[in-house]
């Protein structure tokens, strides 16, 4: 029915439907997008690229707003710290 893609979130493989945003994939995997400056886990808030709470390291590039990026096969995603 849906085409599934494999992505790695903090090293663990997740299978998500094509079209899933990276922010949604991190929510699905129950992983925070980033750890705040005082150590709190945070995830997407605004969903539209404004709040930067969903920023994470995507394919090695830091500070990516994950709500604005779609998952791609074999993408590596890591929480920002």
């Amino acid at each position, binding site marked *: 029915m849906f085409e599934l893609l494999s992505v790695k979130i903090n090293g663990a493989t997740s299978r998500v439907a094509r079209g899933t945003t990276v922010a949604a994939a991190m929510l699905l995997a129950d992983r925070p997008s980033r750890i705040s400056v005082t150590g709190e886990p945070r995830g997407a*808030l605004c*969903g539209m690229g404004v709040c930067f709470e969903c920023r994470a390291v995507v394919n090695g590039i830091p500070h990516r707003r994950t709500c*604005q990026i779609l998952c791609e096969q074999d993408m590596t995603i890591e929480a920002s710290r």
Partner: protein
Amino acid sequence: MTTTEVLVIGAGPAGIAAAAAAAENGCAVIVLDDNVAAGGQIWREATVGEAASAHRGHGRKWRALERLRRSGAQVLGGRCVFSAEASGTVQTSHETSSGTLVEQFHFEQLILATGARERFLPFPGWTLPGVFGAGGLQALVKGGFPVGGKRVVVAGTGPLLLAVAAHLAQDSAVVSSVVEQASLGQLARFAASLWEHPAKLAQGVLYRAMLWKTSYRIGCWVVEAIAGSNGHNLSAVRVTDGTRVWTEPCDLLASGYHLVPNTEIAALLGCKFRGTFVQVDKAQRTSLPNVFCAGEPTGIAGLEAAMVQGEIAGLACAGISTTLLQKRVAAERAFGESMEKAFALRKELRSVPRPDTIVCRCEDVTFGSLHGYTGWTDVKLQTRCGMGPCQGRICGPVVEFLLGWSPVSIRQPLFPVPLQAFCFQDESVEIATTNEPIEEKA
């Protein structure tokens, strides 16, 4: 450097109408949008599975996008505008798989259709994962986050709450309650004013009907989000009506307090403001002769206002009279004003955050640490409030409501970009942010 007659920033309903109108009348038009696809927030498409194609082929959204496609206007998605000069240049950053592409666009006329974002208000626990914006949760659901079977509380203020709740219910979420801070009196007057806008009234009634299982709590607001046993997820919210406080268990909270206009580019360009909104004349022209503005940045008034204002701005750029369309703007603006009155924030919301409640989420600055300061400059230097990557887009409206401080200044870059972005003034360059080599651009 790319040169165009008309540059439109924002591909929501206002930007689409503006771009199509200008292009249909002979202008070369480029539209830039931060999002991947055109449509803005209100016409955001589901990107996953069956839902991604379910609503295509009919409706206003489809007609607008189809018109845009046929008009010949070029739409560039994923372009984040970080600098702009009224002399005629806009700079954007575009994230690619190998780094950041910095592009320059030169324009003769500029149309700002930058829309609005949600207003967030802080309460203890609002930084817990599981707490989202109202429109925020809806956008994430469209991006593939399933809410089926999850218990959701939708809270805050504004017409968006019912729309979000109805869509979440349609996606099989269990929307236990909608918590609206506006009083019954305010809402009744607003509902009465809707008789002049029958389509909007019908939409509201439809949403309410879709939510027949949901409690609609008027004159109530969330005072706390409570963490579950692991401390890192949401288990319940505390809600009050001003006299009584009760707990509602939930998995997700969608909380938004109406809208804030995105006016950063207009402010950077030096456009005159009318309060918090960009001042425009009847042709949507700002105080700068070659800069137009349409939609929410000129006053929060919704979809119809955005579409007609965009149309006017596009036609005005092409030198066509818009006198007939201007009457419709007045009617829609009146709707916006009645909305503003109906969903005005109650003063009790100012006493919801505790001293240890975070106000600036980027820098984890608490409400208590703002005490003793008199304004933004002080507080930025001493606490870093508003100095993080969102550049005060979230905490700015919060601080304005809680402490009455208006923003003081705006500077480029409007969004974080690599430092190298400023080294290239006349050319488009790709800046590597990984160790992998960048391929030569054709």
